[in-house]
């Protein structure tokens, strides 16, 4: 991560401060420099982070710690979805846009994504989950692909008891779905005639899979619970250590996009997100995998390289 300390950065800090006055009503009391601590007093400003609901808990927890150390900075974390995050950082109306997917996949004009700085703050592993009544433990990638394109419709076809498969998908623009389809369907087209149910929140999906016999969906590792059954894929367990080696291929980065010249407070917060204070503890506590442990890297086009 390169930090370019330049005049532009100074200007944008000034801009953020004036924006603070404009936002005065919503961020009452924020932005006042810390009175006693000289180190903290240097940093001030207001940072608004909007976007991915999957990333929200981690950013909120980190922001709380960061604000305790830097009383001059006011960080507001909002949800709204990855699309919102990318839109708003692209329009310049917020300082940080949180997203589960690469900005390239959300913006119609791919060049727009190049004007943003991509900060990968964590890795999230995802895996297929089924209702506890399903007596299948392991699926191959091909079988998963068959289920999620509608060609396999009965658990009997994949070695289980004779029962209908109820597919519960995520909303078509959701980051979780994009990650899952990227890793499992690998570009295969879903026929128009196959229209499974869709839900937009992980919590609801977990509840529906728990309640519906024969149901299958996919969730981030952090949503795995006792009343759900997480499946192995090609014999590989859905576990963080398998994600780090890319043996488990269904995973994605969590991105915090900033403009190419973020203000001082924003940059400090991003640096804090990538520091050991967050990576070593908070990231794992909230169910993510630290970026630092990854032994592979993936770019926006999906090319995997050894890190």
């Amino acid at each position, binding site marked *: 991560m390169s930090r370019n300390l330049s005049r532009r950065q100074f200007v944008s800090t000034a801009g953020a401060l004036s924006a603070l006055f404009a936002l005065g009503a919503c961020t009452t009391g924020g932005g006042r420099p810390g009175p006693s601590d000289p180190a903290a007093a240097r940093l001030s400003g207001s940072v608004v982070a909007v976007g991915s609901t999957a990333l929200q808990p981690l950013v909120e927890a980190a922001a709380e710690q960061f604000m305790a150390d830097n009383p001059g900075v006011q960080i507001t974390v909002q949800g709204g979805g990855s*699309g919102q995050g990318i839109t708003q950082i692209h329009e310049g109306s917020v300082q940080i846009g949180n997203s589960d997917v690469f900005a390239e996949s959300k913006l119609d004009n791919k060049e727009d994504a190049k004007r943003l700085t991509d900060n990968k703050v964590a890795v999230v592993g995802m895996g297929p989950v089924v209702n506890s009544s399903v007596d299948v433990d392991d699926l191959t990638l091909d079988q998963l692909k068959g289920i999620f394109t509608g060609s396999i419709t009965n658990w009997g076809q994949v070695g289980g008891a004779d029962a209908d498969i109820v597919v519960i998908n995520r909303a*078509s623009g959701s980051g979780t779905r994009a990650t899952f389809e990227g890793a499992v369907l690998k570009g295969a087209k879903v026929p*128009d005639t196959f229209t499974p*149910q*869709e839900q937009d929140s992980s919590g609801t999906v977990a*509840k529906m899979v728990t309640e*519906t016999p024969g149901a299958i969906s996919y969730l981030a590792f952090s949503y795995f619970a006792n009343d759900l059954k997480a499946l192995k894929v090609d014999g590989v367990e859905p576990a963080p250590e398998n994600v780090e080696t890319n043996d488990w291929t269904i995973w994605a980065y969590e991105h915090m996009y900033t403009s190419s010249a973020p203000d001082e407070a924003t940059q400090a917060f991003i640096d804090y997100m990538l520091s050991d204070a967050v990576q070593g503890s908070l990231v794992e506590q909230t169910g993510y995998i630290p970026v630092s442990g990854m032994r592979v890297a993936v770019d926006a086009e999906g090319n995997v390289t050894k890190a």
Partner: protein
Amino acid sequence: MALSTTSKRRLERRGQFISGLAVLLVVVLVCTLIFMVCSRGIATFTRDGVPLGSFLTGRTWNPHQSNELGQPTVGALPMVLGSFGVTLLSCAFSLPFALGASIFVVEVAPTFGRKFFRPLVELLTGIPSVVFGVIGLTMVVPWTRSWAGGTGYGILSSSIVLALMIFPTMMSLTADALSAVPDSYRDGSYGLGCTRWQTVCHVVLPTALPGILTATIMGMARAFGEALAVQMVIGNAAQMPSSLLTPASTLTSIITTSMGNEAMGTVYNDVLWSLALILLIMSMAFILLVHLVGRKGSSND
């Protein structure tokens, strides 16, 4: 305190200014909202080149993909039908209960109704819709599945949940309509030797009919616009509803599931605003209907 005429007039003018400002604010707010939904909703047809006809009658919803003409496949018919399906069915479920309960609290036990039952029902309106959604998910869906088979998600389950949600609106308004029938009508009916049942059937209900219709339409408007609870139990499958028991979708359920995920200015986002435009036009139609019914009712008197 005595005020001179000029200061009284000034006070009057100041009051007028403040209340006028409040009205102006609301008017501006509503107008800008309508303008925003319209301008974004129309972009689908003007900028993205989707023909209006194929949007309203198309049966396939997959805005991320294009058809053979290079236009995105954005048929809204499954959602429109889904919305009308749950609206009509939930009203059909709720109306008999609303009618029966309001007859009871107005005609049979007015004190019990005023002091206990109506406040109880009005409490229902304060319950957040996510609670209804969870009740639907954990009780209605498994119950439907237990006797009808399938997954349990679909128009039937969401209509049952919605019927519960619109019951307070429909019951309160129906009860108001029944109470508005003058007592002289009832006295006249009793004077002719009618029983209570005959009075209700032949005098009270026909007189209150416009009010009952208004209550029904208000209930329908609420059902049409409800998003969260429906989204949790209908299954959100953007396919033509083939039965009451297969997963379907409504305009609101598709908007809430997708809006946060799609960046502004993309085709998908535009189409979602077009769905919102349909919703807006429908709720305008409901309001218009209420006014028409109300006018007809008053001219009858």
